[in-house]
């Protein structure tokens, strides 16, 4: 017997000790996104940020170009020249010879397995990179090694972020990370490099900046959390428009700025600006204080991050509406630098900028011969790409292309041929893809403009209908083996359906439910599309050159087509059926929770008459339940009051129904 107990204890402890080191066990609590059911969090998800995609793009001194290979190579060359003597080293099975110590350190950081927060190393997860990627003997340098592991573009950019910004974007370094895609890492870099120079590098030693495991979120977060300041990027971030992704990166960097500047987001002078007072876990604010975004109302930390982001990307309204807060950020964070105009934030002296603009315009005019450039276009579209002096060749090229694009939008494609020939661009040139993509953008722009202007034309109608069919197929949840899957459609639909159509759910008339569902989908969609975002369908990609009337016409057309499709589609019935089951479940949970209400909300229940008890306890519940549980615009659950009185004990004044009785009652009312 003793032996059995001893063996059991040894085995038990072995399992406990082995637990932390187990390779497959996640060391961060993560849960599948489908499991989130936080009604409040989902309903609170509004467009809260300080700038839209197009405003961010047009922000003065915005970094608009991605790093090209020449810039990266030039950076690494300079970095490798910083050390006087190179080293031979072996890192996780890979041997390097005569390599810069800085690059060896960076490679070590990128390939050393840590826990999810970078608190400590996790030896059980440590890879042997030589074994997995056969780096030697072909590679003896770090640049070559990162290319073997991640591919040339991604590898160099991951290395660049580590060296320049002190953030670690390697999925091998931190648990529950997935590899960043190229467009994602470009947005990370562009967002980070919108910071003022004196705050770069911002990362603490080897700080995480990775994409969290795709399809998962951190426990405690809602599915709408795009990122955190650890820094983890989530699926919601990936789905944001590109410039909004950069805004989100900047927002998270702003939290890190607060830390860098001595937890500036909680110093008395910052808290005083909005009257922030901490009471336990919650924060109260002065109701008359000035905020830049609705999101900033949450707590002083988000207030700070949103204020910095708005300062950087949309400063004019910020300065006008909250001058005190604006000046605090200006003086204490940005060292007086402002982003109100190209002149105020550019590192290029204004006289040189003006001179350069004139010569650039002349050069492009000469190349295109037949067109003349509007100086206003140069100032609005082109100079915004210049924030550093001397202006790089790459930025000059980008600027020329922007100007040419403006012309091409109004002229025939013959001009493109002129441009290609003048620029000596060959068919295999890296710039060709860029130009082609711009041509495509122009074509889309022209095509969509046609749709907006000619919305009654049969041809465009057919083209548009095909597009809508595709949008619905891509966006709404699919039926797989009888089950409905898909995060966005079903989660959004379920909660919105319950909130907006509860009366119809209780009425039990399928046609009314359907009409209500279509109405709120369209209402939601119109609201979200007006923020250049989307809730159920893909974002309507409206070219920036559209005027307001064209945008409205296109949106109207888009929504009328969606309405038609929804009326004809039978997938809505599957949605509704699933949502009604959710409503039943929530209603049953609510009634089952009566002890909570007795203890926390209605402590004087013993003094109530039976009628009062039913009325106050269950038919006039808290604001939360009025909003989320009982049928909208009603005084309670239809027919519930009389049922309650029947089922209540006159002695204890408590319900005496069984769970089965409750379930039967709910099932009989909602069907």
């Amino acid at each position, binding site marked *: 017997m*003793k032996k059995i*107990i001893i063996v059991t*204890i*040894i085995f*038990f*402890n072995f399992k*406990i*000790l082995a637990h*932390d080191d187990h390779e497959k*066990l996640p*060391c*961060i*609590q993560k849960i599948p996104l489908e499991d989130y059911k936080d009604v409040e*969090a989902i309903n*609170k*998800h*509004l467009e*809260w*940020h300080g700038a839209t995609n197009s405003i961010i793009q047009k922000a003065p001194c915005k970094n608009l170009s991605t790093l090209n290979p020449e810039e990266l190579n030039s950076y690494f060359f300079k970095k490798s020249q910083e050390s006087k003597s190179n080293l031979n080293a072996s890192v996780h099975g890979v041997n390097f010879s005569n390599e810069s110590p800085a690059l060896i350190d960076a490679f070590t950081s990128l390939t050393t397995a840590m*826990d*999810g*927060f970078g*608190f*400590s190393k996790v030896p059980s997860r440590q890879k042997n990179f030589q074994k997995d990627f056969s780096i030697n003997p072909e590679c003896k340098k770090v640049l070559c090694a990162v290319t073997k592991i991640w591919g040339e573009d991604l590898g160099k950019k991951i290395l660049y972020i580590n060296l320049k910004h002190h953030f670690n974007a390697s999925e091998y370094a931190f*648990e529950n990370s997935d590899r960043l895609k190229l467009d994602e890492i470009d947005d990370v870099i562009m967002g980070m490099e919108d910071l003022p120079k004196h705050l770069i590098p911002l990362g*603490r030693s080897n*700080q995480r900046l990775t994409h969290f495991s795709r399809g998962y979120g*951190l*426990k*405690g*977060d*809602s599915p*709408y*959390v*795009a*990122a*955190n*300041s*650890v820094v*983890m990027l989530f699926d*919601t971030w990936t789905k944001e428009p590109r410039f909004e992704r950069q805004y*989100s990166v900047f*927002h*998270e960097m702003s*939290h*890190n700025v*607060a*830390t860098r500047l001595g*937890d500036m987001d*909680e110093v008395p002078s910052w*808290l005083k600006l909005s009257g922030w007072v*901490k*009471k*336990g*876990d919650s924060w109260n604010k002065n109701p008359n204080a000035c905020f830049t975004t609705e*999101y900033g109302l*949450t*707590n002083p*930390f*988000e207030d700070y991050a949103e204020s910095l982001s708005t300062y950087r990307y949309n400063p004019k309204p910020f300065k006008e509406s909250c001058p005190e807060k604006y000046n605090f950020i200006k003086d204490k964070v940005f060292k007086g630098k402002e982003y109100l105009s190209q002149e105020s934030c550019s590192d290029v002296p204004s006289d040189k900028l003006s001179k350069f603009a004139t010569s650039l315009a002349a050069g492009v005019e000469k190349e295109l011969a037949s067109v003349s450039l509007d100086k206003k276009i140069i100032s609005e579209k082109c100079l915004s790409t210049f924030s550093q002096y001397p202006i790089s060749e790459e930025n000059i090229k980008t600027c020329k292309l922007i100007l040419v694009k403006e012309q091409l939008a109004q002229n025939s494609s013959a001009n493109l041929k002129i441009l290609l020939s003048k620029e000596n661009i060959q068919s295999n040139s890296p710039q060709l893809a860029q130009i082609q993509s711009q041509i495509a953008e122009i074509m889309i722009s022209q095509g969509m403009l046609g749709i907006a202007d000619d919305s009654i034309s049969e041809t465009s109608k057919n083209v548009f209908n095909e597009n809508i069919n595709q949008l619905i197929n891509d966006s709404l949840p699919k039926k797989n083996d009888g089950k409905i899957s898909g995060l966005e459609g079903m989660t959004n639909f379920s909660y919105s359906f319950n909130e907006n159509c509860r009366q119809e759910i209780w009425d039990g008339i399928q046609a009314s439910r359907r009409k209500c569902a279509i109405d709120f989908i369209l209402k939601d969609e119109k609201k979200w599309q007006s923020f250049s975002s989307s809730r159920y369908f893909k974002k309507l990609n409206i070219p920036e050159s559209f005027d307001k009337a064209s945008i409205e016409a296109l949106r109207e057309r888009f929504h009328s087509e969606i309405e038609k499709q929804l009326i004809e589609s039978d997938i809505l019935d599957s949605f509704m059926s699933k949502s009604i089951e959710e409503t039943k479940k929530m209603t049953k949970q609510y009634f089952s929770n009566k002890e909570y209400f007795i203890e926390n909300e209605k402590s004087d229940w013993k003094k109530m008459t039976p009628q009062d008890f039913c009325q106050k306890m269950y038919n006039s519940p808290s604001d939360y339940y009025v909003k989320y549980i009982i049928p909208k615009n009603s005084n309670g659950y239809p027919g519930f009051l009389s049922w309650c009185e029947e089922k209540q004990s006159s002695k204890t004044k408590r319900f005496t129904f069984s769970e089965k009785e409750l379930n039967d009652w709910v099932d009989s009312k909602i069907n």
Partner: protein
Amino acid sequence: MKKLKAFFALSAFLFSINAFSKISWKEYVYSKLPEPIRFIKIKTDLKSVEKNIGKAQLVEKNKHYYELEGFKYSLEIIYQNKGVKEFSYTFMGNRPSIDTLELETAKLTSYLPTGKSGGRFLKFEDKDGEIIIDAVSKNIYSVRIRK
């Protein structure tokens, strides 16, 4: 029998270091609390608390709030039957590092997640209460003691 007892003792020891190496978070945090607050324990009566740290600047029902070091309110004490039921303290200035704690990262969850950003705080919670960690600077932001 002695061997069996020894194994039980070893078992308990190994179990405890699995949760927190060397020292529990509660012991560690208590050692970092300012001297007058360190005195507060669960069930300490209201009079003793007020004798040591004075009256609260704000009282809302059974919740007493103290402004310390110019920060409103770094201390919250919740009473039940005039004894401390739980209290929370927000560290200001020199915050304790988490390096010596060896927290189980599997138990960390997001704290104050709002809107699109998860912010910079993580929460660790067990039967004794919770600690809020600033994941960026890797120190303890606040603590709540419940037991």
